[in-house]
């Protein structure tokens, strides 16, 4: 029961994160939301996790949950990569404005 509560808290945290990210990166938000909801379902209905695990050839339901967690981690990693790209775009705009301001103050077209 303690493990179930802990996992539920973690997955609710992921769900909240997905909701926030959805506005900026809809695909990432949807994927992580789907993974978190599936995780929540399996945490509270482990029999279904065991059945699905056996069906897809994983073995145990708990392994399926671990795989799901790995999938969530990878999605979040991808999201971090996208955030870095967004940061780079901001830096680019700043660097461009600075470069243009310097050039304009230095010269007129020859």
């Amino acid at each position, binding site marked *: 029961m303690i493990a179930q509560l802990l996992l539920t808290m973690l997955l609710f945290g992921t769900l909240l994160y997905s909701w926030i990210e959805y506005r*900026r*990166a809809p*695909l*990432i938000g949807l994927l992580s939301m789907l993974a978190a909801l599936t995780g929540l379902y399996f945490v509270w209905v482990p029999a279904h996790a065991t059945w699905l695990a056996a069906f897809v050839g994983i073995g145990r339901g708990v392994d399926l949950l671990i795989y799901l967690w790995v999938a969530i981690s990878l999605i979040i990693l*991808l999201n971090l*990569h*996208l955030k870095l*790209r*967004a940061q*780079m*775009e901001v*830096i*680019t705009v700043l*660097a*461009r404005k*600075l*470069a*243009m301001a*310097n*050039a*304009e103050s230095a*010269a*007129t*077209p*020859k």
Partner: protein
Amino acid sequence: MQPNKHIWVVIPAYNEASVIARVIADVRRHECPVVVVDDASTDATATVAERAGAMVVRHPVNLGQGAALQTGLEMALEGGADIIVTFDADGQHRATDIDRLVDALARHGADYALGSRFLGHTINLPPSRRLLLKAAAWFTRLTSGLTLTDTHNGLRAMTRRGASAIRLRQNRMAHASEILSQIAASGLPYVEVPVTIEYSAYSLAKGQKLGDALAILIDLSAGRLHR
């Protein structure tokens, strides 16, 4: 050339000190403003370009060719350009093709004149590079719907309206595909124009490699995943 039109030439450059002066001298024969966007070169590109008579915009940090191109477009637009020509710094383009591109804009009523080495001529083009460029043209047809023979040619001309519709977010190599997607999205008319590309050992060493194609695909995919 179109009379009474304010034509600007934009040249993105990174560590091109050994060739940039000759490129600028060729382009300046057209008596139009030349903007060299120095992408934080570690050599004397900026100094050499300035001495050769170009207006130099210097990025404080290295951002990539796509970012340099966008800076050049914005600089030319701010300067009041009616037509903007983009030109590579490595000496593989011919300044005489600028006239063809600019004339094609007026003749076809187009907003973009895109240089094509496959409608024109190539000198010393390696077979592997030809294959890569053909694959890129096929990929562009699939993703943007544009039917072009040459999709990674840095020699282009665009009207003020055309340049205003371009906002490059891909800082590095994927900008060539992004610019075509934005041309397609703008709905503005475009035309391909035969040009000559002459490869030298120098330009081949600086050009894109087969492995870069994967990086471009990743960049393009990542660019579509966020707003």
